[in-house]
């Protein structure tokens, strides 16, 4: 279920043609932090042995030029039951890679990063995902009934507490789009998750058209990661008047040496399924 507040915002925009424009606004410069993108994604039905972790640095808000990749760190993931270590090799471009990872469903793993004399750590559990049972297109749902949307159908498992991350990326678009879901109101049901792209002339965005190819990824995620991503996703694209006050999202990477200098990003372990859908004439 999409949140109710989206409707309010949509209503206001729809009814009062309020005026929006891009303006120059000065913002503050916060502290530079380590950014940990430690997403160990295990595609359903694969071995999952090849995994990468990205380390970067944060930059001022409007910065487009800085090199952000972090090199020279030591990155190790440990199976907390067996004690087995998986060392991620520094590739010298901010990417750290291993080919020997052994994913175990429901297993807890820890992450340890040594960088600039400070130690960052995190703990997370490998979370499963259900299968996508169908993908189809339609116009009848969504905010706009005149445009195409994609439908992703899956059956939520019976026991409550399943959380989902969706990544949608239309081929040719610059940016992917993220959405999160929980089974709070829909536990155990067959869920039809729709996704549409609304027109935005200012940014040259057009709705789905026949021939468009959409890549869909659906991840099973832990509750803490859901809580984290829910805020992060809700703040993508800006935060309006009727939305929750924005904030600096805190992930699960703790700086053990200097707690105030925490890292952005998250150490996650997720199972995922993917699908590709090509839109056809309605």
């Amino acid at each position, binding site marked *: 279920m999409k*949140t*109710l*507040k989206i409707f*309010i915002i949509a*209503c*206001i925009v*729809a*009814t*009062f043609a*309020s*005026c*929006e*424009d*891009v*303006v*120059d*606004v000065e*913002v*503050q*410069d916060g502290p530079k932090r380590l*950014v940990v*993108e430690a997403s160990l994604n295990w595609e359903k039905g694969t071995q999952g042995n090849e995994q990468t972790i990205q380390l*970067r*640095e*944060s930059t*001022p*808000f409007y910065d*487009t030029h800085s090199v952000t990749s972090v090199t020279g760190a030591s990155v190790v993931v440990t199976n907390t039951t067996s004690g087995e270590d998986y060392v991620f090799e520094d590739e010298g471009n901010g990417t750290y890679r291993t080919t020997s990872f052994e994913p175990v469903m429901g297993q807890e793993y820890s992450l340890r990063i040594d960088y600039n004399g400070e130690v960052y750590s995190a703990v997370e559990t490998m979370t499963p995902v259900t299968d996508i049972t169908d993908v189809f297109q339609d116009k*009848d*749902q969504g*905010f*706009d*009934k005149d445009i195409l949307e994609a439908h992703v159908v899956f059956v939520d498992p019976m026991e409550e507490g399943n959380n989902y991350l969706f*990544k949608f990326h239309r081929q040719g678009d*610059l*940016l*992917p789009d993220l959405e999160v879901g929980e089974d709070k*109101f*829909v536990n155990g*049901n*067959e*869920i039809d998750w729709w996704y549409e792209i609304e027109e935005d002339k200012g*940014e040259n*965005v057009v709705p789905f058209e026949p021939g468009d190819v959409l890549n869909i990824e659906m991840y099973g995620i832990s509750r803490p990661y859901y809580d984290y991503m*829910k*805020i*992060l996703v809700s*703040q993508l694209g*800006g935060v*309006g*008047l*009727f939305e929750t*006050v*924005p*904030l*600096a*999202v*805190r992930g*699960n990477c703790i700086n053990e040496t200097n*707690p105030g200098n925490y890292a952005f990003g998250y150490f996650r372990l997720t199972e995922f399924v993917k699908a590709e859908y090509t839109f056809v004439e309605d």
Partner: protein
Amino acid sequence: MNSKPQLSPAIKSIVWLLWLFFLGCMLASGQTSHTVSGTITDKSNGETLFGASVFLSGTTIGGVTNEYGFYSITAPAGAYELKISYMGYNDVTIKIILNQDLKHNIEISEFSTELEEVVVTADEPERVILRKPEMSVVKMNIGTVKQMPVVLGEVDVLKSLQMLPGVTNNGEGTGGFHVRGGAQDQNLVLLDEAIIYNTSHMFGFFSVFNADAIKDVKLYKGGIPARFGGRVSSVLDIRQKDGNSKNFALTGGIGVISSRLTAEGPVFGDNGSFLVAGRRSYVDLILKAAGEDNSVSFYDLNLKTNYSVNANNKLFLSGYFGRDGFTLDSSFDSSYGNASGNLRWNHIFNDRLFSNLSAILSRYDYDLEFSEDEFKWVSSITNYNLKYDFRYYWSDAFKLDFGVNGIYYDFDPGEVTQTADTSPVNPLKLDQKRALESGVYLNAEHKLTPKLTAQYGLRYSAFSRLGGQPITEYANGQPVVYNPGLGIYQRGEAIGETDFARGDAIETFGNFEPRVSLAYLLNEDSSLKAGFSRTAQYIHLLSNTSSVTPLDVWTPSGPFVKPQLSNQYALGYFRNFLDKTYSLEVETYYKTVDNRIDYIDGSDLIGQNTIETEILNGEMRAYGLELLLRKNEGDLTGWIAYTLSKSEQRTLGGIAGGPGINDGDWYNSSFDRTHDVSVSGAYRMNEQWSFGANLVFQTGRPVTYPNGQYEYEGLSIASYAPRNSDRLPAYHRMDVSVTYVPRKYQNKRFKGEWVLSIYNLYHRKNAASISFGQNLETGANEATRTAIFGIVPSLTYNFKF
């Protein structure tokens, strides 16, 4: 009981009060005195007048009429001139011989309706304002409200109040108002004594109060009298008209957004009157005609009737019903609104004891229907309120108010029902909550010396959160727990539930609320006033957004949510000058609020059954200086208002541990405005033409901007600075209006006028919000401003028949 720490000061204040009451009674007895009492009404329509001065000329004996137009003056036997004056009305003087108790019901007439009668200028009675300890009060005549330029031609009581010092809103297109740095839910809004939970239509573009049905508006920004309770920031007391008791009349208007029609007239022979006022927007009709699937609409209906049983008994019945509707592309349908009703019985026991008994119902609810997902979401708050208020005019020097009040609340925070079996959404019902709020008060208005008048009173309020629902128990009693490693607040672990039977109280609170103010007359034209008030608030509006929405839900105090307690200190200087044409009011205040709810980072209030896992109890403080210079008489009237203020909040970790929200630092509340300047003027050129203008300047609203970015999941993620550490650009605008009364109407019964108003004359794009995100085409971060109103001209036609 959370009142333990203040028990001893409370007892001290009671002893003090009793002593003062005793003193008052002593002073009151002794002389042979008689009483003159009665009701003051408007000659043209029979409406009772609230706040009219009634004085014995050449003495300082007198007072003002109450909400029902009643006055009672007691003076030593003798011959007097009884003088009645009321702003905008002609003074009336009546010779009386006070050798027995007298009854005088007096009609007075407005300046404009019978110009030949304008004789006297205000004199003696103006001093009432100076003498009365009442401070921090704004009283607005509905006539003044109607003169001001407005957006889209909709006369708006709340927007007019925001032109006065100490009153602001949260930006264009947001509902409600803020008083002296307080939150919106800290205002007690009463329409004919019924609590109104949501004051706006169309998410705040317009207020729910139809100016044609309203008699007067009084806002207590501080120094809240003991008879009011339940909110810590202000009381907005709005009274509906009783209806014309002289003859049948129709009033109406046709505007850009809505049209309105009011019918009023006498009923029950000469013993009563009625009023029915309706207003409806027609944006939805236009949208439908244009083939648009989205729709927005509102309407409201005001009803009032009264019946005089005899000279000492009068019954009133009033009602309000308002509703907003929203439809989005036929997939989403919503409606929300207030409904209220009040049955009152005015009883005059004798010429010195006035009483009013009210039985009031009010309700706010919303209803959302998601047709494509086949479910419905409903939520409501309902209260039943019984109150009995007395005023005893003991002597000229001593007047006593006392009464009791009980409110039963029924909170239904949310229920999901499927509209078809195929709905993918499961049914859900959040726990229904019940509570009983009661109050008892005693308040005296006491002329201690000819120059010093005091008002002192005490309210005792009690609140019981009633059973009939389970209460969750948490590990270590912590619904919210600080995670020191991650540096965030998280939901506590539920370990069980306790079921409370319907008859049981889950938790009970009690608070003494002393209210004291003093007025000292420095000379004929100026006075100093000082006040202290303590107020308690037991119900809270849950809202973690920058601006409240109609879908926010009220919650009662209980095991995890403590009552808000506020102390406010105020000091003021008041002066009339240049023959009382001008007046100056300067006030300064300092107030604190304990137990203000604050929301942890990432709080989720939608469909949340255990809101205690999303909040912490914090505190607020606000202080400021307010200046108001008014020109009250002449062809040009108006005011200049300036406020310099600060409003902050802080939330420590408390039992949850950790430093607190925003690291436990004080941060600007979103209602903080450093500078706020409003200028409002009305100029009456002649019988045909009059003009109005507003000028507003405000420091921008505190907001949270990004202070960095990082790449994650192929996107640029904005990281935000500490809460409310940035500000929107300053807000300013100018509005003008012209009113034209065609000559042909002037001496006819039918009166019509055209009002042209231009809102935001110089088309400033005031930011309602600025949001930050990645441009989807270029990938670069940018800031997007949303401005609600540019220049908005509108034309309205009003008529009276």
